[in-house]
């Protein structure tokens, strides 16, 4: 009774690649050994510091010291740089542990096969095996790394920030250190009067905005699509082309343009109104009218998308359903209510929920048009039209209240992700995707 699998496994656990060499897979073994060698060099110099950094976030702030009678700035620990460096190191360490585990499992498995009398694969055969059976995983490796470092790592970082006191004016590195504070930031945001008043106010408006903007663009788009699709309307293609134009103009341009058009003093809209003897409206400067303006402008930007979507659905409704309705003597309105509307709602419901979730995070519409203004004196660094996202932006980039911004971001993320996940898991394309074929 040979004990190849245990031996190979233990050898590989001691040093990556040894088990593979024991299994006579020399090229693979050497590759694993090389990986471990590089990793050892890297981790010996970095891992200790990473653990230290993660727990303390730096110990000595920058300070003035007298060197031979002259005051000199001695650079200290930069908490945020330390935090992110530690995070990167730990991420590499986790990746290394995964590779290490895979290496042990590989040695063990091949050892077991040898015990059963099967010779181990040559290098060529291993490559072939991966290409045939582990194709998906190896295909996902490259995009996965990109996502790991540019999406997941930053998210970890932001989540961590919410548990620190990284905020102006007292805890901005490099002059000062940052510390872990636990749930204090969340407590301040949700309970402390100064912050919670703004938070609930902005949250309410965010939800009102998301509901109104979704409904207006959706039903606006439906109306336009139905108008164009009526029997007897000519030049259908032309109408569609004309109405699609707002969609083709980059939002950045159209919203900045609208901001000029609606300008209370110089804006053409008020000047036209004045022309007809009407007083101008404070489109962007009055809290109520500013809210009206963003909704209206968002309709202009968003209706073409819904229109396209619903036109697409209309073409898929079977004609015989209408014919059946006609035989039963249904009026136009009844046909719409009984056939068209349910069909549209049925096939666009997932998109509708996604649009709602997207509107909660609709940064561009607010930021480019009003910048969150007009200013609201009762709010902490937020204006009357600020959504949670734009408030978060202001808190980070203008006010340096990074911990507060991160806490808001986490809450926002939970809301939006909850919606989309619920929606996605419900859709048939997720549950029954294999039934398509």
């Amino acid at each position: 009774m040979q004990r190849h699998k245990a031996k190979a496994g233990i050898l590989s656990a001691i040093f990556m690649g040894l088990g593979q060499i024991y299994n006579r897979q020399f090229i693979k073994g050497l590759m694993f050994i090389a990986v471990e060698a590089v990793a050892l060099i890297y981790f010996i110099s970095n891992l200790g510091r990473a653990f230290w950094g993660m727990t303390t976030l730096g110990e000595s702030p920058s300070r003035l010291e007298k060197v031979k009678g002259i005051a000199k700035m001695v650079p200290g620990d930069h908490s945020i740089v330390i935090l992110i460096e530690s995070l990167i190191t730990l991420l590499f360490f986790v990746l290394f542990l995964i590779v290490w585990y895979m290496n042990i499992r590989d040695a063990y498995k091949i050892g077991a096969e040898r015990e059963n009398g099967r010779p181990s694969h040559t290098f060529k055969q291993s490559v072939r095996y991966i290409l045939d059976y582990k194709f998906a995983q190896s295909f996902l490796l490259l995009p996965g790394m990109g996502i790991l470092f540019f999406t997941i790592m930053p998210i970890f970082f932001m989540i961590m920030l919410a548990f620190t006191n990284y905020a102006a004016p007292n805890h901005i590195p490099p002059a000062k250190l940052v510390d872990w504070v636990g749930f204090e930031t969340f407590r301040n945001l949700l309970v402390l009067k100064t912050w919670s008043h703004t938070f609930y106010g902005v949250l309410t408006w965010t939800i009102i905005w998301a509901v109104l903007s979704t409904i207006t663009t959706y039903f606006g788009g439906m109306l336009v699509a139905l108008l164009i699709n009526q029997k007897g309307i000519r030049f259908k293609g032309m109408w569609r082309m004309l109405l699609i134009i707002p969609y083709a103009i980059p939002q950045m341009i159209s919203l900045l343009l609208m901001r000029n058009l609606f300008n209370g003093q110089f804006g053409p809209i008020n000047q036209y109104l004045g022309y007809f003897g009407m007083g101008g409206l404070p489109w962007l400067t009055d809290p109520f009218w500013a809210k009206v303006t963003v909704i209206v402008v968002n309709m202009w930007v968003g209706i073409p998308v819904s229109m396209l979507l619903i036109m697409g659905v209309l073409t898929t409704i079977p004609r015989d359903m209408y014919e059946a309705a006609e035989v039963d003597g249904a009026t136009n309105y009844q046909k719409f209510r009984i056939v068209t509307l349910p069909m549209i709602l049925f096939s666009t419901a997932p998109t509708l929920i996604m649009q709602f979730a997207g509107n909660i995070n609709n940064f561009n519409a607010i930021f480019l048009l009003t910048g969150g203004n007009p200013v609201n004196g009762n709010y902490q660094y937020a204006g009357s039209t600020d959504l949670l996202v734009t408030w978060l932006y202001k808190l980070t980039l203008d006010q340096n209240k990074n911990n507060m911004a991160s806490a808001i971001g986490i809450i926002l993320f939970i809301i939006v992700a909850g919606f989309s996940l619920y929606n996605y898991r419900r859709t048939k394309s997720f549950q029954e995707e294999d039934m398509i074929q």
Partner: protein
Amino acid sequence: MIIGRKAVNFIRLGLSYIVLVALAIAAIYPALWILLASFRPGKSLYSKTLIPEQFTLAHYKELFTSPVYMFGTWYANTLKIAVFSMLIGVVLTLLTSYALSRFRFKSRKTTMSTLLILGMFPGFMSMIAIYLLLKEFNLLDTHLALIIVYAAGAPLGGTLIAKGFLDTIPRSLDEAARIDGASNFGIFTRIILPLSRPMITYIALTLFVGPWVDFIFAKLILRTKENWTVAVGMWDMVNTMQNSNFTLFAAGAVLISVPIMILFGFLQRLLVDGLTAGASKG
């Protein structure tokens, strides 16, 4: 009775045309207005007539010759960034969507849900982290940094849509090819890629337009004026001199919008497919 019905129909169509004309005017007016403003002499935002009394190309000329606005440089920068992040992003998106559509492996559904959720994360929330990461690698103020970040984020936006499309390509084609001895990679390049041309175009278009219109991230990374993209430049133009030189802004806006509008015009059909891909799979 029949006459009554005809009259009702006539009124209905008449009203519909009136509404359509009104909507069309509302849709075109701002676009037309900015186009005409870009040809208007002077700098003012307001003019009494929609159609200018005189036409001039001076604003376009100024954009490219003025020492203050380096519009030509910005345009070239944006084009470069957009093309490269589109190419890399399309490849990455196709890799993920092909793997998710055609292979069944453990944690596949988890991967899909994770992609969806990560895509929901407000992008600039992670800006500080990415900023520091790029600083670590000495990539701040470079176009490479933007390309890497846009391309790395591409699979988050496009994978699920592209996967939905790939699912509709019959798997019997794959199997036939497999019997003929094609490898996984061969199937991908010879069957999947040619058949998914509409989807690739859609993804490529969205990835190309992204860098044109993104200014938040570009503004953070690109510090020196000659490295800016058009979006950052235009944003700066509006913010530093709102209303004082509107016609120049209009000219810049036209130059940014026209290529995108032409692309959209050509690809209208595909856009509809792309939009509905996520919706009506049921």
